[in-house]
Every structure is written in structure tokens, then in C-alpha cells.
């Protein structure tokens, strides 16, 4: 009662209110911008200036019109601060969509082109031996990729992780600075150089100028992988609070056990993620494997003997040496690319699960 009375008695406006656009304004403005530019290009099409309706231009110019319109509208209704906020929101969203477009395009193109050959039963049960034209499969390439990348991971994870532990826990002064510097330099090595290094190393060691074998490919990938593992693990180890190390020291725990049982478990989730990123970085390498592992149409389970096929090289050879039935080769190339993407995706999913299991628990 008293409330209504005072409200009627003093019809003061709340000095804290400001103009506000209705809730769905942005959506309505966006759709109408597209409608307006769409109408414009529709007219252009009718007048014969363009062949057919230009949908991409409609979306592009429609979005620009939206940015301008929402800014002006908001400026006159809500004031300059809100207007800027809405403009930047629009720009950031556009940037996000633009960043995602190539990814979507890539995945969809690979799916569309790769699925036909991917779904043929022979793709994962046969090699390309004695196949001309249709049929055959990429089993030899899948096996080769898994083996070579697996060995590369087995070599580079211990070396990389131990270097990272040295750099964060023990390294001081010149040696540590030199290691950090050369790791940074190694990150920038072109992959072909890694391949040439492995090739030169093994052809000199075995005195064989035409040497090709799977393990050499693994060594080339190791050169590319170690710096990524070192950098990512180092960053993760640095994130472990010093308080935890001191807490362990204060309990009379020696340094090496502190690192093994406190520092590593605490940062394990991040380290696993970093390792997975480094695997994704090298699993798609073509050039070094082309040089040192070569290519073949046959199965080869022996890392130390004979050429070994890998998925990226498989994609390359199918595309580069198209036989009489061109389409069959192209289909297999796309299917190989699709397989590679799926392997990386599965590895990332696995890493997520591992990270989820091992990450520090915060639940109540």
C-alpha cells in the first residue's frame, strides 16, 4: 500500500535505467540484413547481371550490413558503450565462424569423397599388391603408419619428457639455456630436412645409397616430435605449484620421488594432451617418410627391412600415379585421408579420456 502510494506521489524515473533493445533484436536484424542483400542479389539475377543467385555474396554482404546496422541501432537506442559491445560481439562471432569454415569444408569434402572407397570391405583387409584399377585396400598403409608413429612415440616421449623434467627441475645456467634454444630451433625444422637427416644417417651407417626402411621413418619423425614433446611437457611441469614440491620435501621425500609421485601425476593430464598433439603433428608427415621409408604396394610388418607404406604416402602415391581407372585411385586417396583424420580423432578422444581419469580431482 505504502509502496504504490510513494510511487504515485513521486513519479521519479529511476536514474539507473538506460535504453535497451528487445531481446531478439540481433537475430531479427541479422535475418533482415540477409533478406535485404538477398533481395538485392535476386534483383541482380533477374536483370541478368549475374548468372544465378549469388548466395555467398548474400551472406558476406548481409553480415557486413548487420554489423553496421546493429551498431547504429544500438547507438541510438542504448548508447555508445552498448553499441561498441554489440559490434565487437558481432566481429568476434564472425571471426569464429570464419575460422571454423575451412575445417567444416575439409571434413565434409573428405567424407563425401572418401566414404565410397572407405566403406568397401577390402579397404581394411587388403593391400595394394597386384591391384590395378578398382579394389584392393590400405591395410599395409594403416599398419605402416601405426608402427612407424608408434615407434617414433616410444623413442621421443621418454627423451622429450626427461628433457622437460631436466629443464624444469634441475637445469640451471648455460646448459639449460642452450637446450631450450636448440629445442626452439628444432621446432622450426622443415620436415623434409628431418627425412634427409635420417636418410643420410642410415645410408652412411649401412653404406647403402638407396636405403629404405620403416625404422628410418620413425627416426625422422622422432626428430620432428621431440621438440614438441619437450616444449609442451615443460610448460605443463612449470604449471605445477612450487608449494606442492615444498610440501613433499617437508615430509622428507627426496627430490626424485617428489618429481615422480607429486609433480608428474599432478601435470599428467596436460602432458598426455601434449604428447597427443605431438603425435597428431607427425602422423600426417609425408615428405620424410617418402624419402626414408619409401612406398610399396605390399604388406610389410618388418620395420628394419624393405620399404614400408604409410597413410600420407599412400594418399600421395594414389594421387600421383593414377592408373587406367583414375576414379578408383582418387577414391582410395580420399579414403586414405579420411582414415588418417579418423586415427587422429580417435587418438585425441583417447587422450581426453586419459586426461579425465588422471587429472586432479576437485569433486565434492
Amino acid at each position, binding site marked *: 500500500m505504502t509502496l504504490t502510494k510513494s510511487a504515485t506521489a513521486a513519479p521519479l524515473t529511476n536514474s539507473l535505467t538506460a535504453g535497451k533493445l528487445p531481446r531478439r533484436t540481433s537475430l531479427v536484424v541479422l535475418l533482415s540484413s540477409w533478406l535485404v542483400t538477398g533481395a538485392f542479389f535476386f534483383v541482380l539475377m533477374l536483370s541478368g547481371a549475374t548468372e544465378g543467385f549469388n548466395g555467398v555474396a548474400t551472406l558476406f554482404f548481409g553480415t557486413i550490413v548487420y554489423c553496421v546496422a546493429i551498431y547504429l541501432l544500438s547507438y541510438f537506442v542504448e548508447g555508445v558503450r552498448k553499441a561498441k559491445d554489440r559490434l565487437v560481439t558481432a566481429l568476434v562471432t564472425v571471426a569464429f565462424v570464419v575460422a571454423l569454415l575451412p575445417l567444416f569444408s575439409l571434413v565434409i569434402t573428405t567424407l563425401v569423397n572418401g566414404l565410397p572407397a572407405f566403406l568397401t570391405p577390402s579397404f581394411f583387409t587388403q593391400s595394394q599388391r597386384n591391384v590395378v584399377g578398382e579394389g584392393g585396400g590400405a591395410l599395409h598403409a594403416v599398419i605402416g603408419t601405426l608402427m612407424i608413429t608408434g615407434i617414433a612415440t616410444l623413442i621421443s616421449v621418454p627423451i622429450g619428457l626427461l628433457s622437460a623434467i631436466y629443464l624444469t627441475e634441475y637445469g640451471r645456467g648455460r646448459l639449460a639455456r642452450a637446450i631450450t634454444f636448440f629445442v626452439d630451433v628444432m621446432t622450426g625444422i622443415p620436415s623434409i630436412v628431418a627425412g634427409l637427416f635420417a636418410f643420410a644417417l642410415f645410408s652412411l651407417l649401412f653404406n647403402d645409397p638407396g636405403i629404405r626402411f620403416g625404422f628410418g621413418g620413425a627416426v625422422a619423425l622422432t626428430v620432428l616430435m621431440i621438440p614438441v614433446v619437450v616444449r609442451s611437457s615443460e610448460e605443463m611441469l612449470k604449471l605445477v605449484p612450487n608449494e606442492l614440491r615444498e*610440501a*613433499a620435501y617437508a*615430509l*622428507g621425500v627426496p627430490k626424485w*620421488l617428489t618429481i615422480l609421485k607429486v609433480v608428474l601425476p599432478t601435470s599428467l593430464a596436460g602432458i598426455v594432451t601434449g604428447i597427443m598433439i605431438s603425435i597428431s603433428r607427425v602422423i600426417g608427415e609425408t615428405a620424410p617418410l617418402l624419402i626414408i621409408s619409401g612406398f610399396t604396394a605390399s604388406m610389410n610388418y618388418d620395420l628394419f627391412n624393405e620399404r614400408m607404406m604409410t597413410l600420407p604416402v599412400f594418399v600421395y602415391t594414389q594421387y600421383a600415379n593414377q592408373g587406367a581407372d583414375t576414379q578408383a585411385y582418387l577414391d582410395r586417396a580420399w579414403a586414405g585421408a579420411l582414415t588418417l583424420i579418423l586415427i587422429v580423432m580417435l587418438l585425441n578422444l583417447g587422450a581426453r579420456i586419459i586426461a579425465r581419469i588422471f587429472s586432479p*580431482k576437485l569433486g565434492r
Partner: protein
Amino acid sequence: MSKRIEVNDLNVYYSKFLAVEEVSLVIEPRTVTALIGPSGCGKSTFLRTLNRMHEVIPGAYVTGDVLIDGNNLYGPGVDPVLVRRQVGMVFQRPNPFPTMSIGDNVLAGVKLNNRRMAKADADDLIEKSLQGANLWKEVKDRLDKPGSSLSGGQQQRLCIARAIAVQPDVILMDEPCSALDPISTLAIEDLIEEMKSDYTIVIVTHNMQQASRVSDRTGFFNIAGTGKPGKLIEYDDTTTIFSNPSIQATEDYVSGRFG
């Protein structure tokens, strides 16, 4: 179980910087000693020299002697790891290990050292330590939950339980209550009072009421100015320091007239 600490002419350095100068004092067993003084005067630095945690910081070293029951901590061939098993420490911010459950946190000193322990013994040790830290009733039904699920005060008591689980002779506390609310602070002060019968306790605190409540002896540290080394100005019974200090600076500080 508790031991006597004797410090002779201790100088503490960070690289070339002399942080604490010429400290000599004697801490009797089964007492609580409080170290008070303004920020940056070297109380925590001095405390950390008592279990060789100081040298964890690169470039840090000390000169002088710290004797625990006559054994020099800084004598040749002394293993800092063995020192730290006898002199436990509780830090300013509660720092339970995030990857471990509450029970494992208590057992951390055992487990991290790769020592095997029968399940029954482990359970006994968990219960005894948590009861010693006045936390048992609150957590006994959720020992397998992560340590970070506790409140700040409970986490700090968990850290104390973790420290006493390795059965040290001396417990150092570096501002253990500064991140806690008054009720948790009271719980920890009561705990210090109880633990006094078993351990030698040295506590650094900014809270002078706390020093006067819990401690038997009090040391007052001060610095002449920035960049100068910290010094132990006065060390005496707590009642004397707070009621009738012999040095003017101490009286100014404890009566709040400082600076």
C-alpha cells in the same frame, strides 16, 4: 620425542644478499615458540633454515650452526632429506596434494617414500594423525574423497595431520592461520596447545594476539630498512615480550606504535 633446538650465529643468504644476520637462540623441547615481526624481516626465511627447506631456493645458503639435540643440521655429510623427516613443516597456504584422496594425503609421507605398509597399520595411522589434527570426526566417512574437497581450514588441518603422520620431533608452522577464518584459526590454535605435549613447535605469525595466546617464548625480528638484513631483536618469555620488553623497538611493535 621432541627435541631441543640450538641456533648459533646463523647468517642466511640469498646468493649475495644477506637476509638474516647473526641469529642465536635456544628452543626448549615441548614448547611453542612464536616468531613475530614486520613483513620481510626474515622470520619465514629463518624458519625455513630449521629444516633445510631454505636451500630449495636456488642460490640460497647459510653460515653458522643449527643443532637439534646436539646434531648439527649444517654439518658435513648431513642429508637434508633425513633432516626433514625429523622436522616437519606446515605452510602458509594449505597445500594438500591434488591427485590424492584425504586418506592418501595423510599417508603421503609414507607412500611418497615408497614404503610399504599393511592396510590395518595404514588405517590406524590415518585415524591417529587425523585425530591428532582434530579432523577425524569431520572426514572419517569420506577418506577416499579428494583432499581439495575440504574447506580451507580443514585443508590446513589435513596438512598438519600429514606433517605429524611422519612422526617428526619438531613442527615448523609458517603463518598457518593467515589464510583462515577466526573459527578455523581457533581450531588450529587449540590443536597447537594439545600438540605441545608431544612436539617442539615453532610458529611464525603476523597476529600478535595469536603469538601471546599460543606461545611460551617469543622472538621479535626486525629490519633497519629495505635491503638491510633482518635481525633477532629480542627473544624471551612471551609474557615478558608482551608486558615488559627490554628493548624499545619490541615495545613499539607489540603495542602497535611501530613505524
